């Protein structure tokens, strides 16, 4: 009995120590990790979809509370006007969440571009969503007023062969991003004017 107690106590204390240590390190590094992710993960995706902009979309960004979460919005200026805004949305992929950076042209209500940021999809298959530009280029110009779907669901986006779930995840993410934009359009447009 005493042995049993000792085992339980030792493991419990050890686990609590571990939990406490990890929580404090996580808090301590949260800011730095966010900046690093912005520069190395989201940054390239943002710059890719905003290619040709006269500004740096990573620098020209603002935060806004959408529901309970604080989201980042990135502004792109083209022809001297701040007319494109990018935000990140997530779709349920095969191996987890697929993060997608979606740029929306606010002047004509269409998708300006789409780029995958993070994913856990199968290399050589779903992972092509990130590597193959011909998949994401399909999203360019699509109207944000209706949900964006893959051809299997009656939409216009051709899936990556063998990766229906990943393709659907990207389409869902694009649709979600459009939805967030449409639901908060006025506030977002207000903010864009300040850039």
């Amino acid at each position, binding site marked *: 009995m005493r*042995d049993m107690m*000792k*085992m339980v106590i*030792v*493991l419990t204390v*050890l*686990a609590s*120590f*571990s939990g406490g*240590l*990890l929580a404090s*390190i*996580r808090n301590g*590094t949260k800011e*730095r*990790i966010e900046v*690093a*992710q912005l*520069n*190395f*993960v989201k940054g390239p995706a943002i710059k890719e979809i905003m290619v040709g902009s006269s500004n740096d979309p990573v620098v020209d960004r603002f935060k806004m509370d959408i529901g309970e979460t604080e989201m980042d919005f990135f502004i792109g200026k083209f022809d001297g006007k701040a007319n494109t805004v990018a935000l990140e949305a997530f779709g349920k992929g095969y191996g987890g969440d697929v993060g997608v950076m979606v740029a929306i042209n606010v002047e004509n209500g269409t998708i300006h571009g789409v780029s995958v940021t993070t994913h856990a999809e199968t290399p050589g298959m779903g992972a092509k969503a990130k590597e193959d530009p011909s998949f994401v280029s399909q999203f360019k110009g699509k109207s944000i007023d209706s949900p964006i779907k893959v051809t299997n669901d009656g939409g216009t986006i051709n899936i990556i062969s063998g990766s229906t779930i990943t393709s659907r995840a990207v389409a869902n993410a694009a649709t979600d991003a459009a939805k967030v934009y449409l639901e908060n359009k006025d506030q977002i447009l207000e903010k864009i004017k300040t850039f």
Partner: protein
Amino acid sequence: MAKTLTQEFVKGLWEEIPPFRLVLGLCPTLAVTKSVENGIGMGIATTFVLVCANTLVSLLRNVIPAKVRIACFIVIIATFVTVVELLMQAFAYPLFLALGIFIPLIVVNCIVLGRSEAFAFKRSVVPSIADGLGIGIGFTLALGSLGAVRELLGSGTILGIDVTGASFEPFAFMLEAPGAFIGLGLMLCVMNFIGKK
């Protein structure tokens, strides 16, 4: 026969160098040695975990009941691996992206668990630290050298710097899995040859 502190440290650098002598930790060795930088980065991360885990296990060696010792080692090792992962994300994000899934796999790296069980659990703190440091640095050197061979032959560069010139046709095979195995085999061969003399 007891070894001196220095001997405990030095043994990890040659006699008991993983993965060339103690044939342990082969999986990360094969996976991250496509370049010197990744190899050394992984080596440093593993060394950090080795030293911290050895220290804590040694400090607690009289408290941890033998029956649950493996569970305790894993909790301790996993904690430090997560710490390393967070620190890497915060201070060396590109390295984190390059090493990817192999960082969490340090938890099940036989070297770390092996040293905890075979050494730290039975010895006092200072020798355990020496052992961890020695084995860790040895591992880093091993990864760095195999990484150098594979990077040189496979991409013509060392640490990203082109050292071979335009006429060198890279032997891309060395960057793939078969090249890794063959590279490792050749290093083992060289080690044995030198060791025999």
